[in-house]
């Protein structure tokens, strides 16, 4: 035993402080500031929302949700998300495959363009579809002019009263636009990090393209994909601004859940608005829970991949 070890005495526990830690008072103050800030902006409003939803009791709550207009709004929201999420999912996988597994010119430009919908205001996102498909827009003018290239189509569309703006197709399109990047931007960095050696090995060993994708790529990206889908779905069901522009807000027909909430709120039916809002808030909480779980799963998968 060396003399140093025998003379060494641990500092008194009270005096002991890690050299890179703050004094307990500062620590408590910072935790306090953070919690007060989050309470004022996040927790209190969330609790308030549920309290308001049940302010007139359970009877009123379920009555509001059973209302035909509410029911139609719920169905329309599920329809729009049901179309937008799978389409953006297919797009996300395709884009990630092309960008992560191959080299080509203009990749960075493509990446920026994919992110573009995130930086466009929801109201502008709705507006661009009105300009393309509305009565005053590209397609409206085209249909009125009865384009010579397809003489029958314009008549057929007019006869069947096929509308995009102020109708369901416009709502679906606007939803696709605002949720466009979610899956792609989740998968691209993930697949870039994983590289292409595993897929190449599978191909060299005789797997077909599809087999490679289903047996090698998909298991590797499943948690990232699920993560993207969860976020995409939350945004799809909750989109308000873009959908408000293209929907025309016809009750029972083109009102999604967020638009129905606005209608109820504008009617001063606050409890009703909060009742419908509570469903979407519940969806948000479930989304956050799933997100945390998937993040955990993803981390575990990555650790396993790194250890060997």
């Amino acid at each position, binding site marked *: 035993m060396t003399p140093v070890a025998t003379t060494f005495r641990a500092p008194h526990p009270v005096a002991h402080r890690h*050299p*890179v830690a703050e004094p307990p008072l*500062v*620590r408590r103050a*910072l*935790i306090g*500031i953070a919690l007060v800030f*989050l309470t004022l*902006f*996040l927790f209190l*409003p*969330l609790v*308030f*929302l549920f309290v*308001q939803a049940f302010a007139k009791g359970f009877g009123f709550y379920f009555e509001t949700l059973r209302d035909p207009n509410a029911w139609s709004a719920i169905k329309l929201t599920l329809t729009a998300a049901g179309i937008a999420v799978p389409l953006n999912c297919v*797009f996300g996988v*395709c884009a990630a495959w*092309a960008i992560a*597994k191959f*080299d080509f010119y203009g990749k960075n430009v493509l990446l920026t*363009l*994919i992110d*573009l919908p995130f*930086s*466009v*205001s*929801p*109201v*502008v996102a709705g*507006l*661009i*579809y009105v*300009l*393309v498909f509305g009565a005053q827009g*590209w397609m409206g003018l085209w249909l009125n002019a009865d384009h010579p290239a397809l003489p029958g189509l314009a008549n057929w569309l007019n006869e069947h009263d096929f509308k995009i703006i102020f109708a369901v197709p416009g709502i679906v*399109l606007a939803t696709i636009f605002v949720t466009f990047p979610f899956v792609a931007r989740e998968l691209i960095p993930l697949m870039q990090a994983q590289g292409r050696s595993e*897929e*190449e090995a599978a191909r060299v060993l005789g797997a077909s*393209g599809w087999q*490679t*994708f289903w047996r090698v790529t998909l298991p590797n990206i499943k948690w990232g994909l699920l993560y993207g889908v969860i*976020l995409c779905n*939350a945004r799809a069901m*909750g*989109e*308000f*601004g873009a959908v408000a522009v293209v929907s025309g807000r016809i009750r029972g027909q083109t009102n999604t*859940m*967020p*638009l129905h*909430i*606005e209608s109820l*709120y504008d009617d001063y039916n606050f409890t009703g608005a*909060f009742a419908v*809002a509570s469903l979407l*808030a519940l969806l*948000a909480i479930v*989304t*956050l829970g799933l997100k*945390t779980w998937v993040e955990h799963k993803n981390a575990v998968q990555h650790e396993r991949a790194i250890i060997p």
Partner: protein
Amino acid sequence: MANDRIKARKIRVLPGFKLTLGFTLFYLGLIVLIPLAAVFWKTSTLTWPQFWHTITMPTAMASYRLTFGASFFAALVNVIFGLVVAWVLVRYEFFGKKIVDALVDLPFALPTAVAGITLASVYSEHGWIGRLLVPLGIKVANTQLGIFIALTFIGLPFIVRTVQPILEDLDPELEEAASSLGANRWQVFTRVILPMLTPALLTGFALAFARALGEYGSVIFIAGNIPMKTQIVAILIMQELDMFDYPKATALAVVMLVVSFVLLLAINVLQWWTNRYNNTHLA
């Protein structure tokens, strides 16, 4: 030459390049690029003086000032409190930390209309928080303060989530070295930690600012719709649309689009800087 050929052959080992890139470009064009081009096409139906007159009319000028001002201050407040929240979540242990961490993303997950009616009601004169502010003479609903609060709400996760990973990866040795050389805790924070967090803080600020500029759903309920006073640009565009004045709405949309494209560019540069900074200083 031989090397190039081997490289080219290696790429071809995996199938589906043409199919996936083709579909990606087709879908991108159909959903994003062609509709965006429509905005610029519609604007071209206005003459230059008409366009200029529309985007500089007094209601528009007031809405730019309000939108930029409120977004700027909301992002600034989020930088300060977001840093505190990220710090507390990374460095300290406290009861309920995991739940708090998950709930930070609430503004991302909560639909904007739901956030909008909730904030408007909580901060109204009869709401839980608004009621406490009335004796102080502070009015939130239908004021610019309300817009600021809504934009602070939606911007919060951006700062926390950009700063958090950088803070987690900070090498404690740098702080230990600074304090063993005699720096006190505050000096270590301002001279060692803060400079390393600056790129992330700026990126978070830019992301929150960009998001706030275009925000509509969470603002409309708390802002009221008072011309020249509480009309942000998105609300103004919506009002023109409700009156079927498409050229006016489009001209304003072009202004918004150009601003967001410039910001997108700035954010890309910032993120590149953040990554480079981390690679050289933290690796």
